[in-house]
């Protein structure tokens, strides 16, 4: 029992850190609110879908940046979708960096695009690792009531 509550505290702390460091926003809370007994793995499923989808989009962005001449319109389309996905799961840092990236795109600023893309990739990697740790702990803790899990 004590071990369970210790894990819950750890989970709450982990989530709070994700919010305090700006990686997640309240949209992630919305996802957790949607999870219930009939869909106990909903958050993990959505997060998995996000990283699969975002990895694909980032590969497309990488290709688009390598092409010559650069098609900034096509690049913006990929960015729009990446930003949308990030926003949907509450990946705040990624969403904000995608906004900056799109601004560089609209200016045709290749250097700015490349710098911004590097930040997006870094944020993506860090978020993936942090969420994997969070979800792993969540699986250990098991179904808990939402009030006790709240850490934001």
């Amino acid at each position, binding site marked *: 029992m004590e071990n369970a509550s210790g894990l819950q505290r750890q989970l709450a702390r982990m989530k709070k850190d994700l919010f305090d460091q700006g990686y997640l926003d309240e*949209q992630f809370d*919305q*996802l957790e609110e*949607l999870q*219930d007994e009939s*869909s106990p793995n*909903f958050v993990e*499923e*959505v997060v998995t*879908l*996000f990283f*699969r*989808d975002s990895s694909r989009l980032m590969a497309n962005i990488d290709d688009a940046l390598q092409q010559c001449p650069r098609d900034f319109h096509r690049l913006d*389309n990929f960015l*729009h*979708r990446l*930003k*949308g*996905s990030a*926003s*949907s*799961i509450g990946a705040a840092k990624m969403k904000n960096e995608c906004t900056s990236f799109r601004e560089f795109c609209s200016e045709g600023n290749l250097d700015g695009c490349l710098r911004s893309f590097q930040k997006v990739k870094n944020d993506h990697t860090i978020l993936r690792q942090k969420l994997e740790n969070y979800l792993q702990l969540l699986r250990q803790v098991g179904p808990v009531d939402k009030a006790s899990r709240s850490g934001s």
Partner: protein
Amino acid sequence: MEEVKEEGEEMDVNDCGGGGLEVVRVLVVDDSPVDRKIVEMLLRRSEGIFDVVSVDSGKKAMEVLGLNEIEAKPPNHDDQKIDIVLTDYCMPEMTGLDLLKAVKANSSSRSIPVVMMSSENDSERISSCRAIGAEDFILKPLQVKDVQRLRTYTVPIGPMSKRGSKRKLPMALIAESNGAEARPLLAKVAAFGSAVFLTLNFWRSSVMSSSCN
């Protein structure tokens, strides 16, 4: 790619939400697998009111709606009758706007309410969608309150109008579902309340449209 219901699958058409309400069948159209999954869950969590069909493109939506030119077929009671379309605006090949135009241009689907979703709060986009006949324009990411108001677009206000499929939600049934069986006065109050809600919603959208940019 996970789908709640794929085109062609049979659905439990006798499934009723809480309180005896008929189920509203929603066609969700979004190329983003993340957004589709979230919207599906939002709809499923809405007290059993919604039955969800989701597709990842405008072209597939046309097939579900029986609007595919290649496979043109007359409306059939055995078809999956859609009560409302909830579509993303930005999609490759066939956009949500293209889908909206196609739905409104066809006599067999014109009465189906179409609600647009977008991550961009673009006043011109919103205006053009409304001008073509979109019921509403919802900003992504969707919230619970956005999904709850979808019901109102399948409910006739005043005299019964031919909207969506035969699977409509008469005002009396809504009153009954709230435990007010055989209470005509409550049904009138519910109708007034819905009218006020929709009017307020319209003004809110108008204010949002004029404040963006």
